[in-house]
């Protein structure tokens, strides 16, 4: 893509990006009938120029180009450095082909190991997101609508404090708690509820719990922000009209908080699906998570193009999921980003 003849093009890219954002600022859509100041009048010309240039550079160098490089790399063969750019460096689907058909460890015609890991990851991440929602919704509702401000601050502190410990340490802490001689098994044995320790790690229970816990804050904050903006009088009005509590949640609060729910669920889903630390630390010997496989493509097999292909597959899955959620919830992208 960026061969030696393409070099002038790379200098044009930032200019192009700036031009695009400039045009967007100039012709931003305005609600009809509303006279609003233009982007430049609102921010002042110097600030407006700074914003446009900064956003252009940010989106170009941090988002667009790296992804483009990844995608481009995923279509290349694995070659020793000497041969890169040589006659063998042709675009190919072999990395994607490998995901479905290839395998180095078995003679199966289809790469069941990776495919299974992929779908299991997607499915488990979905469950983690849903479970997280079920867990966080009551708490978020309590904080946003019921609790007094002082209590809310205290709860927020309790929620945030564990995240001062870094993610890997937290995962190890979970491993210790869930191990066969760990706290939970000790309690279960001590109470006589089980006569043998439960293998939480081998059953991936520790993994799901760890993943759920790792991204709980994302869910809490998404839900809390959404529910907090609901006027409390609406809840009272529904109650006054005779609604039982579940009806109020199902038909007043949840529809109102839908964008927050969608954003919380998609965030947790994507973070879980892309999580590396928790599967590595909490995964049992038999557990199959897609990200460690992906990681191995890069750093065990030293097959960067293949890793890139796997990463791109995961990215596509995540983006499709977000689009699906938006579609199902009849939401626009702008609404969940609020």
């Amino acid at each position, binding site marked *: 893509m960026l061969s030696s003849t393409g070099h002038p093009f790379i200098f044009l890219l930032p200019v192009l990006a700036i031009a695009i954002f400039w045009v967007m600022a100039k012709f931003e859509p305005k609600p009809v009938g509303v006279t609003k100041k233009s982007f430049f009048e609102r921010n002042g010309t110097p600030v407006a120029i700074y914003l446009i240039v900064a956003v252009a550079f940010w989106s170009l160098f941090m988002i667009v180009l790296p992804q483009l490089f990844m995608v481009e790399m995923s279509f290349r063969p694995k070659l020793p450095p000497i041969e890169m750019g040589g006659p063998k460096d042709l675009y190919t689907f072999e990395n994607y082909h490998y995901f479905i058909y290839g395998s180095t460890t078995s003679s199966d015609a289809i790469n069941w190991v990776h495919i299974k890991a992929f779908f299991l990851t997607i499915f488990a991440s979905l469950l983690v997101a849903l479970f997280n929602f079920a867990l966080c919704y009551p708490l978020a509702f309590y904080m946003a609508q019921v609790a007094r401000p002082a209590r809310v601050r205290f709860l927020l502190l309790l929620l945030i404090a564990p995240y001062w410990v870094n993610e890997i340490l937290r995962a190890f802490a979970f491993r210790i708690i869930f191990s066969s001689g760990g706290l939970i098994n000790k309690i279960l044995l001590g109470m006589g509820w089980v006569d043998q320790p439960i293998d939480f790690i081998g059953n991936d229970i520790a993994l799901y719990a760890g993943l759920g816990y790792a991204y709980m804050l994302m869910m809490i904050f998404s839900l809390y922000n959404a529910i907090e903006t609901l006027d409390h*009088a609406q809840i009272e*009005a529904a109650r*006054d009209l005779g609604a039982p509590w579940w009806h109020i949640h199902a038909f007043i609060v949840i529809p109102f908080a839908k964008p927050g729910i969608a954003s919380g669920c998609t965030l947790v889903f994507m973070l879980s699906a892309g999580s590396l630390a928790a599967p590595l630390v909490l995964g049992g010997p038999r557990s199959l998570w897609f990200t460690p496989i992906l990681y191995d493509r890069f750093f065990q097999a030293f097959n960067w193009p293949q890793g890139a292909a796997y990463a791109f597959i995961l990215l596509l899955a995540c983006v499709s999921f977000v689009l699906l959620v938006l579609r199902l919830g009849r939401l626009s992208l702008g609404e969940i980003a609020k």
Partner: protein
Amino acid sequence: MTAAVEIDHLTVQFGLFTAVKDVSLQIRQGEFFSFLGPSGCGKTTILRAISGFQDPTQGVIRIGGQDMSGIGPNQRPTALIFQNLALFPLMTVSENIGYGLRVRGVPKADRDRKVDELLNLIALSDQGHKKIEELSGGQKQRVAIARALAVEPKVLLLDEPLSALDLKLRQHMRNELRAIQRRVGVTFIYITHDQGEALTMSDRIAVMNRGKIEQVGNGRDVYEHPQTSFVASFVGENNGFTGTITKISGDQAEIETSVGRLVGLNKKSLPVGTKATLFIRPEAMQFGAQGENNLSGTAADAAYEGMTTHLTMKAHDGSSIVATLTGAPAREFPSQGSSVSFAFATRDALILPA
């Protein structure tokens, strides 16, 4: 006949602060009853206690003779119209109105019929499909009323529902509300801090101050026969002169004030030496003529409003005295700063404990 709503020695405290103090009232079936009082006097708190959102610290509320203690807002035969209406923004007009019926499991066909009926009542027949945000302020108002009426409450509670509207619309909605109330015959309990609103709409008014009821009566009662200084000065415009009672003769008393000795009716039979305030309405004040009581000072302002003119005089002690005149004398009002005099009849002046 049992009262529609009976408030029996109601007290509501928030921590150490007492928002409602020992209020007792009976509101009749089909009555348009208003609570009138300044901001923060406890009106909303009383309404919330009636609707069940606020537990009384002491006292009992009975609706249709039945004790409401321990009965939640969703079980009471009341419907509340919130200060900000609290319509459901994600539902259409029809869905809003039908919400209470849906909650009660009314079949869709019956529900639709009832909603249509109510849309008719509020003159929004063909607008049921609209979103709430597409309505004007007055239309939202009417939807809120229809939504509350849909559940056929015995008592409709309205918390300053017109305060967000502009003056013209407010006046229009007053008539509309009153007309709806007459048509459906439901007991309305209405809260406002606007005395004009209370006077024009209500069958009876309870004037409140600092958590207490000062007076209950119809509009003429509270306007013409105020029982306390607070009612006299809060309901309508009034000139008040505070001083000490110096002489009593029959049903009249003389009071020594900073603008001179004035005589008024002493309906409360206050004894000599009591600190009291004499109230005289601006429209009972005469300009130019000499009378039983005379006040003098300098002309300060003449606010001409067409049918009436409000003349303000600065008395010798610096206080402002207002006279409202209708018709001709207004045009002869002297220029600012020149000396003028007002007069009033003793039978128009009321002496109340300060």
